[in-house]
């Protein structure tokens, strides 16, 4: 279990109890967090689940695989803390994670 805070681009915060094993994207979608489209359902094929990860958690969210890296290379408004949330798996370690959603996923 991990408490995850999703912050939208206006600054509104929403807290979700995420289960271990699901992804940060899935926890958001199941809890109707706006700002994450996740059109491909987590297949790392659509780049519509882009989030900015709180710096304090950058080393806990795991490494990016090649595919994710190259998808993000092309997304809009990418920063060095950009990740595809479908590629981050929830674990106890991520308790307290804060991610911000971009203004648009397209």
């Amino acid at each position: 279990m991990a408490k995850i805070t999703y912050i939208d681009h206006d600054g509104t915060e929403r807290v979700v109890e995420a289960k271990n094993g699901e992804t940060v994207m899935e926890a958001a979608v199941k809890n109707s967090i706006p700002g994450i489209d996740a059109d491909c359902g987590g297949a790392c094929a659509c780049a519509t689940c882009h989030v900015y990860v709180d710096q304090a958690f950058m080393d806990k969210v795991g490494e990016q695989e090649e595919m994710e890296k190259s998808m993000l290379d092309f997304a809009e408004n990418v920063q060095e803390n950009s990740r595809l949330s479908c590629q981050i798996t929830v674990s106890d370690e991520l308790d307290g994670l804060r991610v911000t959603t971009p203004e648009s996923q397209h």
Partner: protein
Amino acid sequence: MGREGLDLSDANKIVILGGGQAGAQAIQSLRMGGYEGALTLIGDEPSLPYQRPPLSKAYMKGEFAEERLFFKPAAWYEDNNVELILSTPATRIDRKNQTVEMAHGAHIEYDALVIATGSRPRSLPLEGADLENVHDLRGLTDVERIQPQMIEGRNIVIIGAGYIGLEAAAVARQMGLSATVLEMAPRVLARVTSPVMSEFYEAEHRRQGVDIRTNARLARLEGKDGKVTAAILEDGTSLPADLVLVGIGILPNEELANEAGIACNNGILVDRDARTSDPRIFAAGDCASRPLVHYGRSSRLESVHNAIEQGKLAAAAILGKPRPPEDCPWFWSDQYDLKLQIAGLSQGYDQIVLRGSPEERKFAAFYLKNGTLIAVDAVNSAPEFLASKKLIMMGAKVEPDTLSDTTVSMKDIAAAAAA
């Protein structure tokens, strides 16, 4: 916004027919869009709405928990006041009385109706097709039957080398089965892609140990004690089979609409708002034939993107909201460590340009028509896919020499076209 058709913004009873990708999206978009009236889903499958792509990929392999397939947990439908009528086929649409009839005799009224009945696998018109262990691959219950038989060392025969058949072949090999793929056409993926891509995927599957047989004429399936044992080709070849997967295409579930007098022609005909010839009735997803704004024609599409987009279009039209963007069609397929991402529709191309190298398992095939980019097949090449989506929507003309030059980044190519 210049939208045609009846104003339904005071609709208070909305019925969604079919709880797949498109139906689930319509429900979400209606509630997120502020619709507060009655919302009912009639679906003939027993489970909550779920996504199908993992069925021939990670879920089939047993690497993906079932609960991750569902778009929303049961509580979401309760919290959002969505009535779910599951395991219940709709049997008739009565347009005069604005009702939908269900198999158990009850009926339900609508002010607006969204038909999202999807498609069904074409059945094999051959002797032996009804033997035990001969399966379709469309729904969760199919995988429940198939998966226990995916046992190392067994023989699986897959009929049809489309994306679903080839994905299943990849999973079968990864699980240690002997896999044979029978394809009637001279090449795999013949209906959906170019010879370059067919050749690449054929070679890859052979390398992985799949016995791919193109130009294969299947005569019948043979069985013992009611269970399939072999696939027999017209030339007499007998291929041992412990299980058979049939993946020879799909047919749109348009009958309910057709019988109700709604215009259909290989799919329920809809306009850009997903509205059918009846202004209170919408159709979305695999069952609908829609205008393709980037191509100047109408067609059915069989993809997640299309189902999501049309679900959104229908919801917005019902609520009288601005029309959501119509993206260029896209699709993906995962086989082994190859991620194929497709943007656009390649039919009618007059030139193919390759970028990258198939040997390195990282390349893209661009399809041009009169110099305009109309589609791309990108293997392990996300930038090529993402850039092409944009270029196709712009109707951009791109120089073949620029496309094939890997020293020019896709970002620069897209930026140059936008300038």
